[in-house]
């Protein structure tokens, strides 16, 4: 009986001490500012660059960084619009170039000082598009395994060859940014009518229109398809993580589209100065290197990838940057794609 009572006293006493310590710690933490950063789940997950940036920033900022999963960019935009200042977003990450028009409708953004950064030429063209700043980018291309393909295709029409029948993984353009990029790429190089005619011919070649990049790429890594629409930096992932040099991105003569990711500071930010400092860290050499190594995308700023496996990515012919078509225009194209896909 004595042992039992003593045991209960020790456990409850220990819990009391732990609860008191936790309350003290929480009180201390609540007295310092909290920088709220909304980002994609891949950015803020333990495998993404988020946790490192948080740790690095908290060393000097006398603040706490809290990450929030922004989920889909449209949902995030609606959330920012509805919640405004009460939502408390200080930094928002993960919008692409197609979101720029949407996010400036009814939302104000603080300008970010980007003078003095040595951006890649591909990035410089999008820096002044909006108050948001690109923090990484990559070129989209079809990836293949050298061991499965004796000769790589070098033009879009090569995808219609019989060996690729049912062996191409693409993304659904209605739900995935790379999927939309592919459709707009076709329209840009072939013209709308010919592009949709190409899409019709491609139906038999495509194994699936996955709702996301990861769904399509998963089919490629599992060997269910011969190729997937991905990034020229995807082979670097296989080289670094798996020591596998079999994966390559094919260069097409038409030139390749580019995908950018942007960071912005909403006008309703509560800790705007801290947000500016966080973006500075994001664009600093250490921040850019971390983003490059975790996201497997190119850094926006030059002088980072030298001496890393990213430097070995060959130079691909890219399409010159054109401001994305309007949201209404894209909606019309997507409707047409949906109708054609249903076979109406």
């Amino acid at each position: 009986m004595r042992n039992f009572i003593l045991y209960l006293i020790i456990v409850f006493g220990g819990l009391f001490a732990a609860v008191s310590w936790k309350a003290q710690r929480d009180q201390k933490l609540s007295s310092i500012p909290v920088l709220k950063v909304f980002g994609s789940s891949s950015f803020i997950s333990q495998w993404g660059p988020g946790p490192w940036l948080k740790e690095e920033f908290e060393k000097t900022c006398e603040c706490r960084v809290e990450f929030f999963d922004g989920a889909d960019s449209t949902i995030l935009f609606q959330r920012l619009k509805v919640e405004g200042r009460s939502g408390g977003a200080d930094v928002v990450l993960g919008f692409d170039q197609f979101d720029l028009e949407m996010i400036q409708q009814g939302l104000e953004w603080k300008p970010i000082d980007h003078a003095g950064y040595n951006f890649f030429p591909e990035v410089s063209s999008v820096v002044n598009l909006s108050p948001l700043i690109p923090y990484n980018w990559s070129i989209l291309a079809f990836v293949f395994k050298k061991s499965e393909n004796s000769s790589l295709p070098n033009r879009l029409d090569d995808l219609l060859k019989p060996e690729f029948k049912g062996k191409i993984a693409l993304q659904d353009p209605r739900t995935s940014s790379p999927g939309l990029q592919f459709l707009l790429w076709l329209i840009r190089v072939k013209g709308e009518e010919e592009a949709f005619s190409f899409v019709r011919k491609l139906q038999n070649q495509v194994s699936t229109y996955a709702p996301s990049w990861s769904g399509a790429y998963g089919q490629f890594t599992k060997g269910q398809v011969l190729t997937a629409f991905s990034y020229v930096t995807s082979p670097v992932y296989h080289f670094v993580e798996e020591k596998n040099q079999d994966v390559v991105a094919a260069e097409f003569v038409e030139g390749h589209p580019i995908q950018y990711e942007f960071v912005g500071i909403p006008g309703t930010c509560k800790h705007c100065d801290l947000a500016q400092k966080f973006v500075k860290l994001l664009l600093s050499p250490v921040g850019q290197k971390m983003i490059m190594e975790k996201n497997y995308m190119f850094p926006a700023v030059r002088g980072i990838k030298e001496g890393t496996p990213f430097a070995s990515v060959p130079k691909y012919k890219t399409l010159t940057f054109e401001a994305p078509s309007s949201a209404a225009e894209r909606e019309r194209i997507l409707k047409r794609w949906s109708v054609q896909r249903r076979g109406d």
Partner: protein
Amino acid sequence: MFASFFESIKYVGHLVPIAFLRIFIGYYYLHLALEKFKGDFLSRPRFSAGIAEMLPSLNIPSWYKHFLESQVVPHWQATAFVIVGLEFALAFSYILGYVTRPMALLGLLYSLNLLMLSEPAFAAFHKTFIAIHFVMAWVGAGRCLGLDYYFFKRRRGVWW
């Protein structure tokens, strides 16, 4: 065959499988307690709010209902503290095999309370736990792979 069926009551086996179950249940309670400790269970009246919401629909004795209304719901902080403390106590006791018998009886009482407060869908779950605590107390599960064996050897008695 029928004679063997009744004769088998004399069969004496190892307590190792029971010790495995005990440690597993201990780990389960540790997980529960840590979740509550790390979350806001101790700082927000989640448990008592749930009880207050369910009270009108609960089919429990009136004295117990009165006890919940007058003691548990208003003193939610103390209640939450006792619940987390009890779960930690059960966790350490079952993992270490220390004071397992009296703790199993407390666990039985705890599961009985949860059974009365739970929705019918969870009733089977809590009944299973009541049975497990009962067996732990009955066999003195801490005597195998547990600290209770040390005391059982020296002192005997019902506590070990």
